C-alpha cells in the first residue's frame, strides 16, 4: 500500500520525523521499510497484513498515525445530496446475499466526462495510478482514500435497467474495461444486465458498460462481496487488482453509504452531474458497531505488566474504540471497519502495540517442566555419532535440496516406484522429492570434478517414506580405503555379523562392484561403485564409490560398547602366507581364520603378491601365556580349514 505523506497530512497532523514515523508504523504493525519518491511526493511503502482491510486506505493509515501521535483525526466531510423526488434513472438490483452482503448504488444524470482536476490527477499519480477521466479518477481516489472499491457503469448501457449478481457457469467470454478478454472460470461472481455480463464483481468492470467520453448517465455502486469467491476467481484468472486485494481482506461493511456520498459529492462538483435516484441500499443485516469486552486482570496476565488503567483507556480511545469501564471490565464499541477485532486477545494486541512492544520488560516463563517425554521426540544420537566419524574420516557434509528433477533421477537409472511429485513445481528442475540421496551426491561430484579427491556425505530424509539415510560418495581413494570407512561406521555402532550380498537391484550401482549389507533380518544399505553408464550420463570420469545406509536400521542394530579387559598375558604374533585360488573372497578367509578359535584375537591382511596372501595372526589368551605346543595346534587347525574350505595351501 502506497501512502503519500502529504495526502496523509490532510487527515492528521504529523509531527514525527519521517524516519521515526516509519519505524513507529512498523512497530504497530504497518511494516514500512521503504520511502519512495513518486511524482515528486514522499510516499510511504507499507506492507499491510491480511487482517487489516482498513490499512488499504490512506484514511485508515492516517487513523493509526493519529493513535501514535495521540492527535485527532479529520476525516473528509461529506455534504448532503439533493435527491430527486422521484427516481429519474431507475435501476433494479437483484441481490443474492451469499454473494453480496451489501449493495449500495445511486444513479447520476447529465455527467460531463472530461479530465479530472489537477489535484486529483496528481494524487493518483503519487500512488502510481494513471488518470483516465473525472468519473473513473474519482472512484479510484475514493477507493484509495476510504478503502472501499466502487465502480461506475454507463447507465445507458445497462440493458433492461436491471442488474443481477450470480455465479458464472464457466467458459463465458468477458472483456474488461481495459479491453482485455478473459474466459471466465466456473463460479466467478458476475453482474448481468438483462442480456449480458457487464461486470466481474469485485475484480474488474466490463468494457461494454464502462465509462466512455460520450457517457451521459452513470450508475455508481459499492458492493460487499463474498471474499472467498473473489479470491478464488482472481487467483484462477491471475488477475489481482487493488479492489480484489481489499475484498479478500473484507472491507468496511458499514461504510458504503459514506463512501458513496463522498464520491457523489466529488462527481457533482467535478463532472457536473445531478443525482437521478435515491441511494439504493440492500443489505443482509444492519452493520453496526459491535460491543467487545476485555478484563483488566486478563490484560495484566497476558501482557505480563500492569499498564495503568488511564493509559489503557486512552489507547483504546485513540483507536476510536469508544471504551467504557465498569469495575475491571472494559467494554469497547468496535467500528465496522475494524472487523479484525473479534475477541479479548485482539483488544490485548491493540493495547500492547500502541503502548509499544519495545517498552515491555523481559521475563522468562516460570512454570514447571514436563517430566514425561513429548510425542514426536527427536533423537538424532546415531546421526550425530555418524557425523563425527565421517568428519574424522575426512568427509565434508553437504545439504542438497530435497527437490530434484526427473531428468537427474532418470540419469541415475532409478525406477519410479511411487516417487513423490509436486503438481505445481517452481520448475522442472525441482519437481520430485528425492527417493535417494545418491543422485544429489553424484551431481555434487560433478560440481567438484576438478578436485582429485572428493569425500562427501549427507544425512537426510528420503521421500515419500521420510526415512533418514546416510549417504556418502568418494573419488580418488582405493576400494579398500573406501570399504574401511564403511567398516569403521559399523564398528563404531558395534554392528557385527553382517553379510555382504552381491545382489543389488537399483541400476545406479555397478552390477559387479556393489553389494548389500545385510544382517539376519535387516537391510542396512548398499555400497559400491557407481554404474559407468550413470557416470557417462553425467559426464564424470574416474572410480566413484558410494554408499547409502538406512539410519533407522542402523539404530535398531546398534549395541552399546562394553569394555573388555586387556589381557595381562603376552600375545603371540605370527605371519602366515597362503597361496589361494583365484576369485577367493578374502573377507571370508579372514572370517574363518578368526572363527577357528576364541584364542585368535585378531587377523589382518598385511600383504599380497600375486596369489600369495599374507595374514598377521594374533594369538592371545585372557587366562594364561600360550605355549609353543598350543600355538602349533591352533596354527595347524587354521591351515587345515583353509586347505579344506578354500583349497589354499601354506607357502
Amino acid at each position, binding site marked *: 500500500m502506497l501512502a503519500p505523506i502529504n495526502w496523509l497530512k490532510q487527515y492528521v497532523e504529523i509531527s514525527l520525523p519521517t524516519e521515526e514515523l516509519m519505524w513507529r508504523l512498523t512497530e504497530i504493525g504497518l511494516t514500512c521499510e521503504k520511502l519512495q519518491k513518486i511524482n515528486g511526493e514522499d510516499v510511504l511503502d507499507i506492507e499491510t497484513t491480511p487482517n487489516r482491510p482498513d490499512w488499504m486506505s490512506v484514511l485508515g493509515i492516517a487513523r493509526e498515525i493519529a493513535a501514535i501521535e495521540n492527535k485527532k483525526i479529520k476525516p473528509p466531510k461529506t455534504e448532503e445530496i439533493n435527491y430527486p423526488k422521484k427516481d429519474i434513472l431507475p435501476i433494479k438490483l437483484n441481490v443474492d446475499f451469499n454473494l453480496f452482503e451489501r449493495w449500495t448504488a445511486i444513479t447520476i444524470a447529465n455527467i460531463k466526462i472530461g479530465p479530472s482536476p489537477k489535484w486529483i490527477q496528481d494524487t493518483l499519480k503519487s500512488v502510481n495510478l494513471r488518470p483516465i477521466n473525472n468519473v473513473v479518477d474519482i472512484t479510484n481516489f475514493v477507493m484509495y482514500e476510504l478503502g472501499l472499491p466502487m465502480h461506475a457503469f454507463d447507465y445507458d448501457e445497462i440493458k433492461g435497467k436491471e442488474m443481477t449478481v450470480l455465479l458464472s457457469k464457466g467458459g463465458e467470454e468477458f472483456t474488461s474495461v481495459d479491453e482485455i478478454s478473459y474466459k471466465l472460470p466456473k463460479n466467478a461472481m458476475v453482474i448481468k444486465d438483462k442480456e449480458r455480463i457487464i461486470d466481474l464483481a469485485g475484480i474488474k468492470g466490463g468494457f461494454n458498460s464502462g465509462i466512455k467520453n460520450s457517457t451521459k448517465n452513470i450508475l455508481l455502486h459499492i458492493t460487499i462481496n463474498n471474499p472467498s469467491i473473489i479470491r478464488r476467481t482472481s487467483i484462477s484468472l491471475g488477475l489481482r487488482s487493488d479492489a480484489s486485494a481489499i475484498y479478500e481482506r473484507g472491507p468496511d461493511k458499514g461504510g458504503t453509504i459514506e463512501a458513496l456520498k463522498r464520491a457523489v459529492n466529488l462527481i457533482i462538483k467535478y463532472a457536473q452531474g445531478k443525482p437521478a435516484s435515491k441511494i439504493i441500499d440492500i443489505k443482509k443485516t444492519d452493520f453496526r458497531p459491535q460491543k467487545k469486552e476485555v478484563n483488566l486482570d486478563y490484560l495484566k496476565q497476558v501482557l*505480563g505488566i500492569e499498564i495503568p488503567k488511564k493509559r489503557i483507556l486512552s489507547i483504546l480511545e485513540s483507536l476510536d474504540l469508544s471504551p467504557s469501564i465498569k469495575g475491571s471490565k472494559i467494554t469497547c464499541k468496535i467500528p465496522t471497519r475494524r472487523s479484525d477485532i473479534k475477541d479479548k486477545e485482539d483488544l490485548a494486541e491493540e493495547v500492547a502495540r500502541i503502548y509499544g512492544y519495545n517498552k515491555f520488560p523481559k521475563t522468562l516463563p516460570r512454570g514447571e*517442566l514436563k517430566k514425561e517425554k*513429548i510425542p514426536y521426540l527427536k533423537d538424532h544420537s546415531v546421526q550425530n555419532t555418524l557425523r563425527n566419524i565421517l568428519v574424522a574420516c575426512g568427509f565434508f557434509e553437504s*545439504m542438497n535440496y530435497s527437490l530434484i528433477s526427473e531428468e537427474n533421477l532418470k540419469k541415475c537409472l532409478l525406477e519410479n516406484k511411487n516417487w*513423490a511429485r509436486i503438481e505445481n513445481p517452481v520448475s522442472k528442475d525441482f519437481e520430485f522429492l528425492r527417493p535417494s540421496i545418491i543422485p544429489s551426491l553424484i551431481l555434487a561430484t560433478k560440481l567438484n570434478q576438478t578436485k582429485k579427491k572428493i569425500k562427501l556425505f549427507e544425512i537426510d530424509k528420503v521421500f515419500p517414506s521420510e526415512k533418514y539415510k546416510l549417504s556418502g560418495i568418494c573419488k580418488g581413494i582405493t576400494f579398500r580405503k573406501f570399504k574401511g570407512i564403511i567398516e569403521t561406521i559399523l564398528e563404531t555402532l558395534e554392528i557385527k555379523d553382517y553379510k555382504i550380498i552381491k545382489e543389488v537391484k537399483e541400476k545406479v550401482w555397478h552390477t559387479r562392484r556393489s553389494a548389500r549389507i545385510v544382517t539376519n533380518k535387516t537391510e542396512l544399505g548398499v555400497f559400491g561403485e557407481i554404474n559407468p553408464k550413470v557416470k557417462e550420463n553425467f559426464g564424470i570420469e574416474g572410480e566413484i564409490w558410494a554408499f547409502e545406509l538406512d539410519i533407522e536400521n542402523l539404530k535398531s542394530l546398534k549395541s552399546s560398547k562394553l569394555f573388555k579387559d586387556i589381557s595381562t598375558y603376552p600375545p603371540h604374533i605370527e605371519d602366515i602366507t597362503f597361496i589361494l585360488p583365484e576369485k577367493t573372497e578374502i573377507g571370508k578367509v579372514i572370517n574363518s581364520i578368526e572363527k577357528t578359535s576364541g584364542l585368535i584375537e585378531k587377523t589382518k591382511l598385511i600383504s599380497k603378491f600375486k596369489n600369495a596372501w599374507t595374514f598377521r595372526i594374533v594369538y592371545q589368551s585372557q587366562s594364561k601365556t600360550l605355549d609353543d605346543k598350543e600355538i602349533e595346534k591352533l596354527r595347524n587347525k587354521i591351515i587345515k580349514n583353509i586347505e579344506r574350505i578354500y583349497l589354499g595351501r601354506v607357502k
Partner: protein
Amino acid sequence: METEEILNLKNEAFAQITTAQTKEELENIRVAYLGKNGKITNLIKKIKNITPEKRNKYGRTINSTKQNIENLLFERKQQIIEELEKKEEWFDLTIPGIKPQIGSKHPLLETLKEVENIFRYLGYQVAEGPEIETDYYNFEALNIPQDHPARDMQMTFYLNLKDEKGNPKILRTQTSAMQVRVMEQIRPPFRVLVPGRNFRYEQVDASHGFEFWQVEGFVVDKDISLTDLFGTIDFVLRELFGENIKLRFATTNFPFVEPGVDTYMSCTICNQKGCPFCKNTGWSEIMPAGIIHPNVLRRGKIDPEKWGGFAFAIGLSRIVNLKYRISDLRTLNTPDIRILSQFK
C-alpha cells in the same frame, strides 16, 4: 691376569667414553664392558680362579675400575643430554605443517545443534515431524481456513499423494504445522522445540528459496505472558549472537497468534550499513512470534480459559547466514567443497 691389564682396559674404555657422541654409542660401550659378556664382567667372573692371596687386591682393583667406568658413563651421558639441548642449530618453525585430512560438518546443522542446546537449557524438549503434511495441520488447525489471504504469503506445493479424505497432501510451509500435532497428544504444561525444513513456492534468489529451515517453539502453561515471549527471544538471540546485537519488536499478524510479534535484529552482515541481505534497512526480520490464538489451543484439545501459550519460529537459514556473514541463501545448499571446507 695382571693389574696392568685391568688398567689398560680401563684406559681403553675411558678413551671410548670421552669420544662417544650419542646415548646409543654410550650404551654400546656399556654393554661391551659391563654387559653380560662385557670385558670387565668377564674379568669379574674369573676372580674365583685367582689364588686367595691375590684375590683381595685384584678384586678391589677390578671393582673400582668398574665403578669408575660406570661413573664416567653417567657423566658423559649427562654431558651429551646437555649438549643435545644447547647445541646451536637451525630449526625453522615457520615451515608449514602437513595437516591431517579432516572433514567438516554442515554449518546449518551445527547452528541447529547450538540452538537446540540453548533451548534445552531453558527446559524445552525437541521434536520432529513430517514434511509431507495435510492441509489441516499446516493451515486449518492454525486458524487459516481455505481462501484466507494469509495463504498468499505461504504459497504451497501440492503433491501427487492423497490424504485419507482424498485431498492432495502438501509440503509443509511452516514448522508451526507441528503445534496441533503435538498438542493433541500431551497435556500442558510443556515447552517444545521443532526444527525442520519447510517448502514454499518461491523463485530462488539470494534471499529466497523454495526450501528453508525454521525452528519452531511453543510453550503452554498457566500465566504465560507477552513479557515471557520477549524475554525468551531476547535470551536466545543474545546467546547465539552475543550481547552486542540490537533487537526490536514489532506487531504483525499471523492468524494463529494474537497478539502477534515480529523480531528484527541488527544486520550482522553489514553492521547496519545496509546490504542486499537486509534490503538496505540494517535490520533483519528473524523471529516471528506471538501469543497462541485460543482457536489453536482448542484444536489441540487444550482449554484456552485455563491455559495460555506463546509460539515462535526462528528462521534458521537466516540465522546461519547472519552468523557466518553469508549474503546468499543458496550458498548453504551448494555442495562445493570450496564452500564446505571453510566450516572445518
